[in-house]
């Protein structure tokens, strides 16, 4: 009996001694963390996508609490709602950004830019880009091997088998920018979603002279400058034979779309035009 009693006493006292040591160590080496970091991290989507520029959501939370303001810090996945929530926790003013979406600035589909050679190497754009100008011959165009699709963590992209181009599923796209970084040809750009998703952009990044660009692709921007002239809002600039529409200035009037001789400017989510299509439909119905 006394043996058991002794064992209990010894164990209890050893336990007590260690408990005191651990308590002491805890006091001495305590890491005092701002409790707001946990609160902010709780709010963040937890996708760890890196769209904010930090390795993961917690790093972002640490950075934002440490900075104490929200200039240049934004979670594109969470969007304005979450950023507003964070600003309330921190008691600072939130930066608001227009919602963005990834846009594929190449329309070199199988039909528009037919393949001249056949590539049968590794299915990686980053490799094919170092090897040659690609199957279409366009040195700036989409290689169609899907590095962007691979990089997307939100199932927001897929390769369209009929065109050979990637497609962005707007509702899934969080504008984290992973595809922008993955594309070796810098084709993908984050652009403002626009009111009701309406947006206009030049779907080409080819900087070659018009005649050469046109040889490889029917819908290449040939740098003719007609869109620049027709734009009433000064939103289009021409650099190296390539037009670029500034989405902050663009008022979505669509004048450039109809002016472009190669249909290189695309309009997304607009209702069908009443002009040509509607007329032809009418005549069809009469017949």
């Amino acid at each position, binding site marked *: 009996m006394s043996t058991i009693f002794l064992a209990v006493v010894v164990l209890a006292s050893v336990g007590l001694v260690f408990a005191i040591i651990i308590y002491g160590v805890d006091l001495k080496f305590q890491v005092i963390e701002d409790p707001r970091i946990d609160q902010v991290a709780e709010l963040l989507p937890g996708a760890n996508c890196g769209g904010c520029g930090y390795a993961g959501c917690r790093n972002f939370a640490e950075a934002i609490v440490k900075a104490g303001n929200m200039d240049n810090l934004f979670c594109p996945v969470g969007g304005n709602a979450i950023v507003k929530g964070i600003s309330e926790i921190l008691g600072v003013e939130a930066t608001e950004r227009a919602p963005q979406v990834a846009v594929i600035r190449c329309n070199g589909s199988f039909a528009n830019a037919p393949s*001249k*050679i056949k590539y*049968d*190497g*590794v299915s*990686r754009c*980053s*490799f094919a880009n*170092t*090897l*040659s*100008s*690609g199957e279409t*011959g366009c*040195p700036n165009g989409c290689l169609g091997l899907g590095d962007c699709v691979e990089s997307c963590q939100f199932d927001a992209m897929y390769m369209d088998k009929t065109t050979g181009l990637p497609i962005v599923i707007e509702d899934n796209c969080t504008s984290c920018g992973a595809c922008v970084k993955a594309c070796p040809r810098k084709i993908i750009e984050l652009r403002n979603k626009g009111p009701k998703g309406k947006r206009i952009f030049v779907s080409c990044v080819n900087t*070659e002279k018009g005649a*050469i660009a046109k040889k490889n692709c029917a819908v290449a921007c040939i740098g003719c400058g007609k869109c620049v002239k027709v734009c009433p809002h000064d939103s289009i600039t021409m650099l190296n034979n390539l037009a670029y529409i500034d989405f902050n200035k663009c008022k979505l009037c669509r004048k450039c779309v109809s002016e472009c001789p190669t249909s290189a400017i695309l309009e997304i989510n607009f209702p069908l035009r009443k002009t040509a299509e509607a007329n032809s439909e009418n005549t069809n119905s009469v017949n």
Partner: protein
Amino acid sequence: MGRPKMLKTFKIGGAHPEENKFSQHSTIEEIAAPDTVFVMMNQNLGAPSVPVVAKGDKVKIGQLIAKGEAFISAAVHSPVSGTVEKVDFWTDTTGYRKPVIVINKEGEEWAEGIDTSDALIKEIKASKDEIIEIIKNSGIVGLGGATFPTHVKLAIPQDKTAEYLIINAVECEPYLTSDHRLMLEKGEEIMVGVQILMKALNVSQAIIGIENNKEDAIQHLDEIAKKYSGITVQGLKVKYPQGAEKQLIEALTKRRVPSGKLPIEVGCVVQNVGTAYAIYEAVQKNKPLIERVVTVTGKKVSKPSNFRVRIGTPVSMLIEKAGGLPEGSGKIINGGPMMGKAIINIDVPVTKGTSGIVVFDEKESKRNVVANCIRCARCTMVCPMGLQPFLLAAGMEFDNFEVVEKNNVMDCIECGTCHYTCPSNRPLLDMLRLGKSKIGEIIRSRKN
């Protein structure tokens, strides 16, 4: 008497692909310059050359048309006499458009001071520094295919001394025979070129390494070498990639170049045999690098040949001279079949680095079906640099850059032996090349 029969080779890895040297008995044929030449400005490794002529300028053969301004860069000379049509962009072998000088041929007028006779000049008048200066001004680059500017290679750092000059006459790539023919036909000139190089490097010993599938060349050069002091000819076992600088040094001197270091670290300087000939022409005849020997070959090519062509001649013209493009051709390779790259179209011009044009038929040019890695470790066994290609390729596949960097992907010489040997036909070389460019990028960004 005679040379010792012992054949040397390197220790780690290597393979012996089918040789297919169809053109080894065709003597070098001179091809007249075409009416229009396209002289690319990115002919050498390093920075592109900068044009010094403009549209409408009259140029003579051998006249400087572009200079190398950067440290690693080379001058370019006009391969024809005529008028500069334009300084523009032209598709190179990769399909990307690069700066080019287009010259229309009018007559055959050489620039002043160039000796166009065939007479052999043995006496070397130029001094050490003069030789390097002439080589620089003549735009000579490594003609084995890597096109590294020769004058940079000859400028040895102050704290290092060269002991051996190694002449790379291995030509380990299957199909190619341009160096082989050059050795048989211009043996004396090559020897003088080697002497010039020895003088420039201030070394007393030069070794010419030749693989044993070119026995006639070994005998021929051995015979001539007796007349020159300090030059030995060494036969080598046939094993790919013996023509790679580090492997050749190991085979000939048993010295191993440390990872990430240059051959000068072990007292060696390696030059290609074609470069030695070009140096002879530049120093003794004052003739800049405006032409080179190109092998045009392939299993279906009716007349596999070795041509001496002017730089800037379209590849299509060479194929025409070799009997035309065979029916059912699938791929045309610029360089040898192991390391060369397929060209985008046949209008691309010959550059200083074009050692061969190999035509593959449809069946040969197709890749085999890729299967899973079966962990047979053959890629590891054949890798001449002692790397583990399967590991590096898998690392690249899953973007595990840390593993790829730690396992020395930067040591890869892109010889393709792993890819060639893989029984599962895995695209190992592709992945390793991708790894080298990616890790190189990471290392550079870390330095900044």
